């Protein structure tokens, strides 16, 4: 009877990654808020200051990693929430690929923005 509950996708890996990214994001999100609202203030934002931070390699790579983990954590969370409502079959496949495409667009756009500040031009 257990076959009924079978599937080719064991959820364990995504479950673990959701936790790993969570542990990372707890720290980085707190840092992000602190830096951009308490150290620097919302009404003082300028392109030059953002650029100044992004030109540092450590800050740039931290922000890119932040973007990647946040996107995974967020989009995977949305997917899980939808799957928990009993989504299956073609609907689930459609949702999955829509979310993958949205994530890719988000990451590409985010990195392009970071590059604009850091002065990196790929093309």
């Amino acid at each position: 009877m257990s076959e009924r509950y079978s599937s080719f996708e064991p959820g364990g890996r995504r479950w673990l990654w959701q936790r790993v990214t969570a542990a990372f994001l707890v720290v980085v999100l707190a840092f992000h808020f602190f830096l951009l609202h308490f150290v620097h203030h919302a009404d003082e934002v300028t392109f030059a200051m953002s650029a100044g931070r992004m030109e540092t390699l450590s800050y740039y790579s931290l922000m890119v990693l932040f973007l990647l983990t946040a996107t995974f954590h967020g989009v995977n969370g949305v997917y899980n929430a939808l799957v928990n409502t009993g989504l299956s079959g073609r609907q689930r496949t459609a949702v999955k690929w829509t979310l993958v495409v949205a994530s890719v667009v988000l990451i590409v756009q985010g990195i392009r923005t970071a590059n604009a500040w850091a002065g990196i031009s790929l093309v």
Partner: protein
Amino acid sequence: MSQSYNRGLVEDFGRWREFSAGMWAWVFHKFTGWVLVGYLFTHIAVLSTALSGPAAYTGTIRTLEGLLVVRVLEVGLLAVAVFHILNGCRLLLVDLGVGLERQDVSFYASLILTGAIVVASVPTFLAGVSL
């Protein structure tokens, strides 16, 4: 057993008054999660005005930050983020099997702490904005 009666969804969220701590924690975590992922997309969209040059970026951010509505929404965002972080820590502990008997206490603690942090941050978040 030819027929049976299905009571439908009334049994779920229609019963919200009877939810316990763990259930509320889940509801809030889901809700704040949706808000945060929505904000992530908006955030990148706004920041990518930097692609159109320094003036466009600085102008956009200054305009937005000059609006009281935006500042108030930012306080809301802080509340949502802080709760998600604190309850997230609670959930990580639950996943590690630590303190499961005290999970309701840790939920209330994260609520109270969120409230305290948000209230304490209001002056900073509303600084430099004119009505």
